[in-house]
């Protein structure tokens, strides 16, 4: 039986490497994410100064979304691509930075620019602004990667015509560890959007 929805493209970013549809398209020796993200930004000739003001989670999500959506010939005004993201650590990396700025009672100077990123779903807003997505978006926190939930939620959005396409996946940033795995689901493509296939792409099997 033919599947109802399909994965059109997917991107994985981890360990200093950017992969698109299973092929490595950029790699660097930089072990520190701040250097890696900057090199990736420059390599793909992205021009979006706001990128440098984002927190690490948003930078990671932004880069993965950029790789996928730049090939989509998006409308200049409005696009209906829903975002369904997930991770385990929420915005913990930025939460820790904020915590550090308020833990010393003699010197409390929290940064507004850090504070605004103390929610994981802010990265969805950054991507929506960048690509003019006037669409549904949700960010879920799970103990581990949950392919069943992503499939169910994306199919519901597509079946009820709340979205024409759905950009789904996992964007995790915690300490020195980072991993983004995003993929685009739509009606007409090649890879069946099944739990088994989502997991095999996520685990790079």
């Amino acid at each position, binding site marked *: 039986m033919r599947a109802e929805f399909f994965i059109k493209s997917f991107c994985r970013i981890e360990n200093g490497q950017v992969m698109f549809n299973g092929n490595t398209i950029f790699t660097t020796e930089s072990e520190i994410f701040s250097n890696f993200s900057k090199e990736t930004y420059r390599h793909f000739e992205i021009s979006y100064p706001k990128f440098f003001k984002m927190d690490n989670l948003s930078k990671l999500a932004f880069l993965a979304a950029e790789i996928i959506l730049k090939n989509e010939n998006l409308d200049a005004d409005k696009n209906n691509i829903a975002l369904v993201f997930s991770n385990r650590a929420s915005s913990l990396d930025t939460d820790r930075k904020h915590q550090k700025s308020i833990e010393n009672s003699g010197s409390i*100077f929290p940064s507004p620019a850090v504070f605004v990123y103390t929610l994981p779903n802010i990265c969805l807003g950054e991507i929506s602004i960048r690509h003019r997505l006037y669409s549904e978006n949700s960010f879920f926190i799970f103990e581990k990667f949950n392919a069943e939930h992503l499939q169910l939620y994306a199919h519901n959005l597509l079946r009820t015509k709340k979205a024409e396409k759905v950009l789904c996946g996992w964007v995790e940033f915690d300490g020195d560890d980072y991993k983004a795995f995003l993929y685009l689901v739509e009606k007409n493509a090649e890879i069946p959007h099944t739990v088994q296939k989502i997991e095999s792409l996520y685990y790079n099997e």
Partner: protein
Amino acid sequence: MSDLKQELKAKIIEQLNLEDVTISEIDDNDSLFGDGLGLDSIDALELIVMLDKDYGIRLSDPKEGKKIFESVQVMADYIEANRTK
């Protein structure tokens, strides 16, 4: 005064993460917001925190920032006149 203006330019670039902007590219009278450096409302809040943290100036009304942050020159004049550290 000149040192303070240089110091402010360096702080603005570093604290507001203005990638690809150098001190020499910021004129003393350039607008910090709008068509100038293009700073936004979060940047304005960040500058208010910087005034408090580095110069001991606490703004009671954030709207005051609109005038104070007009340019590096205006900021430097205001800091010189009101700094407590």
